[in-house]
C-alpha cells in the first residue's frame, strides 16, 4: 500500500541572529544552515494497518506526512503509494487520500458544516448517490446530527474535530493521514475520535497513519509504531515489542499486615515504605516478577498486590534519552 524507500529531505534555514546590528545585517545578507529533516527513511505499510508515527517535536513527522500526501517533494528516495508517486500526478493521487491537520481547519469558518461537506463533494467529484450514503454513515457514527447545521465557528474543538475527520472522509479515501488528530481535545472527545478511527479502519479497511504526542492514542489504536527522531528512523515494530525491549521496569504495590521488618529483595528498589504498605520498583532483567512476589510473601503477610507496567510515556522518554534526541 505504502512503500517509502530512502527518503531524504533537507531545509535551508536562515540563521537567526540577535542584536540590532546583526538584524540590520540580516536584512541584506542572511546566513543559512542546512537542516536535514529526514535522513534515509524507509518503511512500508500494508493495507488496513493503523500505524502510529511518533517522535518528539521537530523530528520530521510532519515532513514525512507532507511528503506522503504529495505536498512536498523530497530531495531523494522513492515513495510509492497505491502505485502513485505522491509528488507526481498530484491531482490524480490526492483523490485517494484523506488528510487531517489537527491544528488547521479544512472547513469554511462562517457557514454551516453541511455546506462545507457539499463543497467538498464537488471538489472531489463524488457522485450524489455515493455522497449521500457516506454522509449518512458519517453522521451516524460520529454523532453529527445536532451540529451539522451550525456554523463551524460556533462549534467546540471536539465537535469541530469530529467534523474535520468526517470532511476528510467524504470522498471515501483508502488512506487517511492524521496529523495530531486529538490535539487539545478533552477526554470524552478523544475517546470518541479514537473509536471512530478504529471503526472506519475495521469496517472500511481504511489504512491509517497518525502522528500524535498522546501515547494513549497509540495504545488505543496502533498495533504498530514507527519512531523517528532527528530525521532518522529509530524503531519500527509492534508496540508490545517496544515495551518488552525498553519497558523493563515494573512497579509492585503491596499491602500487608503490620510488619516492620525490612523487605529488601535483590533486583528491586524501594520507592515507598511504611509498616503496612510498600511500593517497589523491579528490574525485570534482573529478577522475575513472580520471584519478587514469592520472596515478598515469605517476608510479610500479603493482603493485596498490584503490578503495573511502566507507562508507555516513560518508555518513550527513556527511548528519546537513549537515542539522544
Amino acid at each position, binding site marked *: 500500500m505504502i512503500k517509502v524507500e530512502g527518503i531524504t529531505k533537507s531545509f535551508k534555514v536562515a540563521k537567526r541572529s540577535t542584536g540590532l546590528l546583526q538584524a540590520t545585517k540580516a536584512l541584506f545578507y542572511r546566513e543559512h544552515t542546512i537542516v536535514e529533516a529526514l535522513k534515509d527513511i524507509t518503511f512500508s505499510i500494508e493495507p488496513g494497518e493503523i500505524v502510529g508515527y511518533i517522535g518528539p517535536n521537530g523530528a520530521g513527522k510532519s515532513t514525512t506526512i507532507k511528503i506522503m500526501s504529495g505536498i512536498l517533494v523530497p530531495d531523494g528516495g522513492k515513495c510509492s503509494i497505491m502505485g502513485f508517486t505522491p509528488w507526481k500526478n498530484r491531482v490524480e493521487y490526492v483523490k485517494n487520500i484523506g488528510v487531517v491537520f489537527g491544528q488547521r481547519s479544512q472547513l469554511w469558518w462562517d457557514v454551516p458544516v453541511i455546506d462545507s461537506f457539499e463543497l467538498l463533494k*464537488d471538489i472531489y467529484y463524488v457522485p450524489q448517490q455515493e455522497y449521500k450514503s457516506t454522509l449518512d454513515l458519517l453522521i451516524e457514527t460520529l454523532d453529527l446530527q445536532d451540529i451539522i447545521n451550525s456554523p463551524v465557528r460556533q462549534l467546540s474543538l471536539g465537535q469541530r474535530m469530529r467534523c474535520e475527520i468526517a470532511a476528510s472522509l467524504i470522498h471515501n479515501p483508502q488512506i487517511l493521514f492524521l496529523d495530531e488528530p486529538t490535539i487539545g481535545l478533552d477526554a470524552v472527545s478523544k475517546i470518541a475520535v479514537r473509536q471512530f478511527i478504529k471503526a472506519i479502519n475495521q469496517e472500511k479497511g481504511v489504512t491509517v497513519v497518525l502522528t500524535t504526542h498522546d501515547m494513549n492514542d497509540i495504545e488505543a489504536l496502533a498495533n504498530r509504531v514507527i519512531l523517528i527522531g532527528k530525521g532518522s528512523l529509530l524503531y519500527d515494530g509492534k508496540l508490545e515489542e517496544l515495551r518488552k525491549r525498553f519497558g523493563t521496569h515494573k512497579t509492585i504495590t503491596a499491602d500487608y499486615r503490620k510488619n516492620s521488618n525490612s523487605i529488601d529483595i535483590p533486583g528491586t528498589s524501594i520507592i515507598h515504605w511504611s509498616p503496612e504498605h510498600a511500593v517497589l520498583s523491579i528490574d525485570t532483567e534482573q529478577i522475575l516478577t513472580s520471584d519478587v512476589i514469592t520472596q515478598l510473601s515469605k517476608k510479610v503477610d500479603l493482603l493485596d498486590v498490584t503490578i503495573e507496567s511502566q507507562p508507555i510515556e516513560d518508555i518513550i522518554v527513556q527511548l528519546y534519552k537513549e537515542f539522544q534526541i
Partner: protein
Amino acid sequence: MTLYFKYLLILFKSQMQYRTSFWLLSIGQFFIPFSVFAGLYFLFERFGQIKGWEFFEVALCFAVIHLAFSLSECFARGFDTFSSLIIKGDFDRVLVRPRSTFLQVLGSKFEFTRIGRLLQSSIVLIWALTNLPIEWSLVKAVTLFFMIASGVLIFTGIYMLAATMCFWTVQGLEVANIFTDGGREMAQYPLNIYQKWVARIFTYVIPFGTVNYLPLMFILGKTQGDEILYMLTPLAGSLFIIPCFLVWQIGVRHYRSTGS
C-alpha cells in the same frame, strides 16, 4: 467552472453573516473612486480638455479601468491576499485537493464589498457613454466588452505575480501595489498625455494601454490607419496572463521543494 461558482456561493453565504460590515464597506468602496472621479471632473472644469481629450472621453477611459479593477479585486482577491494563505499554512490544504491550485486559490476569497466600487464605475460608464457622440456598431460594443474583460485579466495577472513572490518571501509585497493601484491611477487617463517612456511601459510591459487607450481611440473614431489593429489590442493585452500563469507554476514547484 461550476466549482468556481460553488466557491463563490459559499463565500457569499459567509459574507452575509456579517451584513453590517458588508454594507459599510461597500458604501466606503463606492466613495473612494468617487472622490478620485470628482477630482477628474474639477480638473476638466478648470482646463476644458487635456491634449485633445474631452471630459467624457476621459471619463470613459476612467470607467473602463475602474470597472476592470473592481471586478478583478472582487473575483481574484484570493491571489491578492495570498500571503495569508501561505502564513496560515492553508496552502498545504490546497495541495491535497484534486483540483488545480489556480482554481482553488481563486476560489479561496471573494471581495463582495467591491460591489460599491463596481456600481460607481458603472454609473460613470453609462454617464460617459450617453454623453459621447459615438456611432455604435456591434464591433465597437464587443471591443468595449473585451476592454473590460482583458483589464480584469491583466490585474489578475499582476496579483498572481505578487502572490508568486510570497513563495519566496512569505509576506505579501506592497511592491505589487505600484502596478495595481499605480497602474490604475495612470491608466485612468489616456496614455498619450504622459511621457513617451511611461506610455511604452504601460503598453508593452504591463499592457494597460492595450485595454483602454488604444481601443478607446477606435471606439471614439480617433484612429489613423488600421482600425482592426486597434480593435484587437485588448486581446493582445489579455495574453499578459499567460506568462503570469507560468511564473505561478514555477512558484508552486518551488514551494513544494522547499516547504517554506
